[in-house]
């Protein structure tokens, strides 16, 4: 039952944050983003994957101040400064919603659904809220 693949300290782990929910209707999107920002200090290998309704988190022109919510969508633009540079968006998720990469706040890597498994298979830790 022992797994010596990773020793404590030193070793770098691959973290994948899977975002599947709309922003604002629930707090999962903002609290996921907060985890990514805090996690950046740990110098791990971080990727973010936006699939299903998670692609709406990156939609341009969000104005949640109209319902008295904080507008945290700008923070996705700041991820680069935290060395979080691998943002993947599933093409089919955009298409079903009538969206294109032009609708998104940040430059992302568009991947087909058939490549999601390969991305997941590389990871050590998956966080999906």
């Amino acid at each position, binding site marked *: 039952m022992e797994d010596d693949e990773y020793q404590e300290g030193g070793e770098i782990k691959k973290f994948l944050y899977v975002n599947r*929910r*709309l*922003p*604002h*209707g*629930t707090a999962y999107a903002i609290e996921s983003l907060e985890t990514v920002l805090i996690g950046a200090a740990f110098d791990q290998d971080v990727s973010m994957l936006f699939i*299903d*309704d998670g692609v*709406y988190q990156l*939609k*341009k*022109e*969000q*104005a*949640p101040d*109209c*319902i008295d*919510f904080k507008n945290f*969508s700008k923070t996705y633009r700041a991820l680069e400064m935290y060395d979080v540079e691998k943002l993947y968006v599933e093409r089919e998720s955009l298409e*079903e*919603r*009538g969206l294109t990469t032009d*609708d998104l706040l940040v430059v992302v890597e568009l991947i087909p659904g058939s490549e999601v498994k390969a991305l997941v298979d590389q990871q050590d830790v998956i966080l999906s809220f």
Partner: protein
Amino acid sequence: MSTLNIINKSPFEKRTLDQCLKRIGEGDSVLLIEDAAICAVAGTAYAEQLIAASKQSKLYVLQPDLQARGFAEAALLDSMEQVDYEGFVNLVVTHDRVHSWL
């Protein structure tokens, strides 16, 4: 005898929209709020289903919830009427009952 049906979840996430639409009819209205607002936008996978529903029921979307999610300027389905919170209150008052599909 009209019912105001309120849907608050994305049809991509939950089946509530389906489950509501198949059980309502003539005289009923549907109001999309919170995360459900996004399906008021033209061009999603649920557009056809909503257009079909609009033949018998009135469809409304809560504008602030659309705007919050970045769709203030987006093209909406033809049959979709935007309301603000004042309009939401009016819908509640002018229907016989309210059914929140949670």
